[in-house]
């Protein structure tokens, strides 16, 4: 019985310490949201914490909606979003007494990607739309080999999908035959392992060794075309805070848009603001 009592005691002590820990922790910033933003959110957070060791930043993913939800519920300090907050989300936030404020932290563009062995280099918006709506099903119709096209898309609720839907699909439905993957990285994996595949992904995820980016209407996805909006699929990446930020949150956001912070944005393959 002694052993049992000891175990119970140890459990009690450990539990108490866990609960107590929350009380005297350092100031904590939590970032929650889009998987697209996570890579540079994380590396900037790491860099920021090196400069300000007293601050803790945790980064969690799950999607733009998740970030918005967390901000509405007041469980995160920053919502990272690859799309603008929807009106219903903003309404919900207001109803909960929160006031979402938008910060543009980086620029991005979505590019169509194919397997490196694919000879196709450029597609028009119309061709892309037809491929994704299921009207074009063979690569030879767009100047490729006589092979079927494996269409790979993203979840209908992801920010990346929304941009694609708005700028390329223009309201047409994606064919239900399209494969759907749950995240940007999974899309890269899927396209890299499939010679027939076409997908679309944020510029930051394009890795020349694994997948090949196509140009749209002759416009390559590059930082310049993205910033200037020359490529139709360019978009801004956002972080939302509750009210105008102060303290460490402001410091972090300032760091993120500073040249130092933007270096990390560039290193992760995204497009800097300037």
């Amino acid at each position: 019985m002694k052993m049992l009592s000891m175990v119970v005691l140890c459990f009690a002590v450990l539990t108490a310490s866990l609960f107590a820990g929350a009380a005297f922790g350092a100031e904590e910033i939590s970032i929650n949201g889009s998987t697209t933003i996570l890579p540079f959110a994380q590396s900037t957070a790491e860099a920021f914490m090196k400069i300000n060791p007293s601050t803790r930043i945790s980064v969690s993913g799950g999607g733009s909606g998740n970030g918005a939800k967390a901000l509405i519920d007041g469980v995160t300090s920053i919502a990272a979003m690859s799309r603008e907050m929807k009106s219903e989300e903003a309404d919900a936030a207001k109803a909960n007494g929160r006031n979402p404020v938008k910060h543009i932290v980086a620029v991005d563009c979505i590019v169509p990607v194919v397997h490196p062995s694919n000879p196709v280099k450029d597609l028009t918006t119309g061709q892309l739309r037809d491929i994704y709506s299921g009207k074009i099903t063979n690569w030879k119709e767009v100047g490729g080999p006589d092979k079927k096209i494996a269409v790979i898309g993203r979840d209908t609720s992801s920010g990346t999908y929304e941009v694609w839907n708005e700028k390329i699909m223009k309201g047409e439905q994606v064919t239900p035959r399209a494969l759907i993957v749950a995240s940007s990285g999974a899309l890269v994996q899927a396209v890299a392992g499939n010679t027939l595949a076409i997908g679309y992904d944020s510029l930051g995820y394009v890795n020349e060794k694994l997948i090949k980016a196509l140009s749209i209407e002759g416009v390559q996805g590059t930082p310049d075309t993205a910033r200037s909006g020359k490529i139709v699929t360019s978009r801004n990446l956002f972080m939302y805070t509750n009210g105008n930020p102060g303290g460490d949150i402001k410091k972090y956001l300032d760091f993120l848009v500073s040249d130092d912070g933007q270096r990390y944005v560039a290193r992760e393959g995204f497009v800097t603001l300037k």
Partner: protein
Amino acid sequence: MKDTDHETRGEALLSALDNSGDACPIRPNYAVFRKFADWLATFLLCSSMIFVTVVLCAILFFLAAKGGGALSWEFVTEPPRNGMTEGGIITPIVGTLQLIFVSMCFAFPVGVVTAVYFNEYARGGTLKKSLRLAMRSLASIPSVVLGLFGLAFFCTFLRFGTSLLSAGLTLGCMVLPTIVTASETALANVPQDYRDAAYALGATEWQTIYGVVLPSAFPGIITGGILSVGRVAGETAPIMFTGAVFFAPGFARGVFDSVMALPYHVYVLATAGTNIEKTTPLQYGTILVLLAVVLGISMVGMAARSRLRKDVL
């Protein structure tokens, strides 16, 4: 055995017994067919087991070969750095341990008490029946549905947020039935004589349970606990929405912090890195560590169980 002799004899016997009917047809070809069928079935059953063993070994060897190179002291003692492309995985390792701890804090005591209730106190009736039904239903619920429940109840309704506490409790709900079943078996294996002896000495019901029954069932209960810990360590779906995060700067220092967890980290590395080439060795390394944790804990449980069985028998 070749035996026309016996066949005729069998017929003679038959006519002695009864004049109607023929003997059972003993066709030589049919006997060959039976032998062949027997051989074939044996062969197929053996090869099914060999097939499964080979599949398991192939999986384990493949992962070990791919991930072995990534393993190093630094890998298991350093936090992830540089957008997960460098560094180690100490944060998710510790996070998984913390999740195990929190879930067990809830599930173990409640599970054992429930088993005590079933075995020592319950007198049949509706209450026991509905609790039994609840436990079995709980055991059958898909883990992702438990995740939804955790999100709606712990995170949103109780305002725990996406935190260690929410995720741990969700996992706790998941393994509760396992612990109850294991503890019940352990309690049922305590001989009635022990209880009778305690009662004969004038012990009260509670004294008997606390002083005699629980201590003798303790090894069995612990074994069940260890085996369920293995399950907690490997689950992803229930913690995806309730507490596991993509990246945390350090260990959770309180139950309201969010955590990184090994299985979720595997998922993240496999599906969300910008730099898949660089993270590939880390992916395999993480999988290997996850396997080591899950299988290690489970094997400890299995070893304890087989020792226990030997003691009992």
